[in-house]
């Protein structure tokens, strides 16, 4: 028989995990529903997901392609492979924060694992990411960029990215419940970071003073873990892989502990 004792539950970091597993069907349903709701009402349906990165790439390639013609061949592939990672991380975290801060009313009404929304947001983000990889492949074929066996590394890259994004989403959602302007501050920060991260341009154009800071930009590590096998057609360096995995795991751990320990306060605060 089920028992609940408010005073004697396991540590929140473990308890939340157990509960999420118990409510796994809810997590799957919510992930599916986000997708359904987003695309049901538009005629083009799933094609929007394909079209969006394609259009973005075309516009930016027209605008900046000639600028980097000598340093970056096949600019569209370079651009899109970086852009996809960037979009995945920022859109997923923003969506997760939004659902927690504004749509988390359900948590006040009934018990469900508090991380449900965030797992669903990341699940939805990963699916969108996979679909946009299809548009990346389309572009690669179109401009005749070489494919290599390094593509076998892509699933690992996506897993690392998903782990990092989940951790970051947990951290940001926790903050956004306590400080409502987290959403706005984050918005400004990522806008600045977008231009400070070599996504649209090669790292080589930065001045030596600026490029020494690049090693401290976690987003560059995450972009490179995906962009290297796609654009440069070789596996990322071992040191890069280690850095990316450590970054992802530390973020996940920090996010999970912060979120689960503050989760009980959500019902008071939302």
């Amino acid at each position, binding site marked *: 028989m089920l028992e609940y004792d408010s005073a004697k539950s396991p540590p929140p970091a473990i308890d939340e995990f157990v509960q999420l597993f118990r409510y796994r069907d809810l997590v799957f349903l919510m992930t599916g*529903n986000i997708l359904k709701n987003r695309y049901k009402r538009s005629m083009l349906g799933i094609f929007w997901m394909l079209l969006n990165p394609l259009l973005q790439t075309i516009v930016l390639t027209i605008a900046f392609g000639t600028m980097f013609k000598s340093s970056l061949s096949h600019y569209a592939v370079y651009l899109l492979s970086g852009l996809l990672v960037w979009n995945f991380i920022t859109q997923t975290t923003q969506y997760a924060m939004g659902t927690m801060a504004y749509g988390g009313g359900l948590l006040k009404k009934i018990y469900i694992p508090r991380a449900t929304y965030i797992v669903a947001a990341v699940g939805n983000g990963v699916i969108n990411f996979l679909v946009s990889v299809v548009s990346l492949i389309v572009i690669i074929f179109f401009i005749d960029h070489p494919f290599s066996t390094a593509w076998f590394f892509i699933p690992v890259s996506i897993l690392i990215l998903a782990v990092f994004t989940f951790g970051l989403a947990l951290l940001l959602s926790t903050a956004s419940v306590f400080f409502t302007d987290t959403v706005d501050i984050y918005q400004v920060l990522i806008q600045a970071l977008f231009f400070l991260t070599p996504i649209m341009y090669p790292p080589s154009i930065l001045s030596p003073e600026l490029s020494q800071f690049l090693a401290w930009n976690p987003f560059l590590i995450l972009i490179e873990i995906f962009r290297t096998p796609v654009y440069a057609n070789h596996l990322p360096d071992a040191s890069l892989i280690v850095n990316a995995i450590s970054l992802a795991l530390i973020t996940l751990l920090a996010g999970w502990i912060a979120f689960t320990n503050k989760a009980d306060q959500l019902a008071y605060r939302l």
Partner: protein
Amino acid sequence: MDTTVIQLHNVTVRFRIPHEKIPTFQEYAIRWLKRRSVSYTDFNALNNVSFSIQQGETVGIIGANGAGKSTLLKVIARVIRPKQGRVFLKGRVAPLLELGAGFDYEMTGRENIFLNGAVLGFSRRDIANRLERIVEFAGIEEFMDAPIRTYSSGMVARLGFAIATDVQPDVLIIDEILSVGDTDFQKKSAARILHYHENGSTILVVSHNPDSIRNLCSRAMWLAQGSIKMAGPVDVIMDQYSSYSKS
């Protein structure tokens, strides 16, 4: 054998009400620069509440608005975990606090049965097995595959009730929703609750209607300002409560 199903021991739930605006980083920064601390009032929604309920009992909870009734139910429904005191529950709790919690109005009745079922903690397979029974009880057979934004509010409430009460729970929490749907459905839902009660479910009712408490409950608890003012046999408490309210 110990038949205690619900036990609360010195439960205190404290809400912090800030005197000023919603907290933002900006506000904190400004305040920090001005060397002012943030001021709060602590408000005890529940104050040292202790009681226990045995299996099969029907207990009514009464009290004025803001007395802590909803908070008490939320503590029992696991929505709020008290920072002080202890809540102990045995068995599956079906909270009829929010019928159709998590309903998505763009989705069909069928999809929402699975969604709401999952919110209530049932597996997909479990719901699939009971789908027909739920639909039949709610009486929405023809509208199963229409988005529920096209439903009348009564239909939505009926569907919510049908999902939440499809399986007999060990504890049933009812918050003023005895009046779901039309007269026929009200009879049907009351009959179902009564049937569960006869089969051993423990029932907790919050209502402002003294008659429904008297009819349904054997025991009553009177909450005032977050504490139990009085508890005992339903007639005694209700007499006291009504003479108090009149004066």
